[in-house]
């Protein structure tokens, strides 16, 4: 079981992700914007953060930068539907999120199993790093 923080301003995605991750046995909290997410992050020790990008108050890339600076070992999954510039052009905000510290990115819409697998992979990687540090 891990402690997971979800930061997303869309209640649909919050409800689905909270449900899916709790079904997997994780202890899940959530916040509805980047600023509230950063505050929760500072107050609690989370193993993994799932962070949307286009949000009010403080957008996701800035939120990820702050979290990565504070906790180099935290796992971060960035999620977004991209920002549409035209019918055919999207700003690839997930690529930017990856450059600023997200371990993994998922483009909305995604299957919930993709999310739980991404979180599991990060936890396995963290466990492996801890085992190497002990050896």
């Amino acid at each position, binding site marked *: 079981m891990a402690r997971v923080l979800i930061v997303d301003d869309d209640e649909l995605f919050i409800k689905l992700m909270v449900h899916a991750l709790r079904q997997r046995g994780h202890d899940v909290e959530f916040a509805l914007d980047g600023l509230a997410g950063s505050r929760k992050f500072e107050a609690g020790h989370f193993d993994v953060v799932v962070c949307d990008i286009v949000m009010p108050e403080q957008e996701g890339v800035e939120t990820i930068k702050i979290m990565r600076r504070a906790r180099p070992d935290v796992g971060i999954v960035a999620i977004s539907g991209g920002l549409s510039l035209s019918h055919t052009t999207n700003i690839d905000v997930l690529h930017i999120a990856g450059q600023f510290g997200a371990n993994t990115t998922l483009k909305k819409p995604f299957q*919930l199993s993709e999310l739980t697998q991404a979180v599991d992979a990060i936890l396995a990687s963290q466990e492996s790093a801890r085992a190497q540090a002990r050896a």
Partner: protein
Amino acid sequence: MTPERQHLRPDLDTGVLDRFRADAGDELLHLLIDTFVSDTTGKLHRLVALAASNRPGEEAIRLAHSLKSAGAMAGAEALSHAAASLEARLVNKEQLSAIEAAQLEQLFHAYRTALRERGLI
């Protein structure tokens, strides 16, 4: 004919819901549909109000962005596509017209009708 039917986008893409059900199960499928229908009603009312105010700003971009992603998750393909187009126009500093907001409501109505016809709501 709804505006998006001109682009051959279905109001409801049942394949999206079938794949979601296969991945996450019936309970989460109903949570997806119920939450999307409830949230979208509020978001569209807000968009209509913003269109009337003539100052849509960042809130309208976020609403269009959210309708795009949530609509794609819930199989509301025509609505999601129209919301993506609206998001792009708003990002490019174009105005949100009352007609556009009404068109999105029309697409949402067609989506709910399709859900009802399939016994999903």
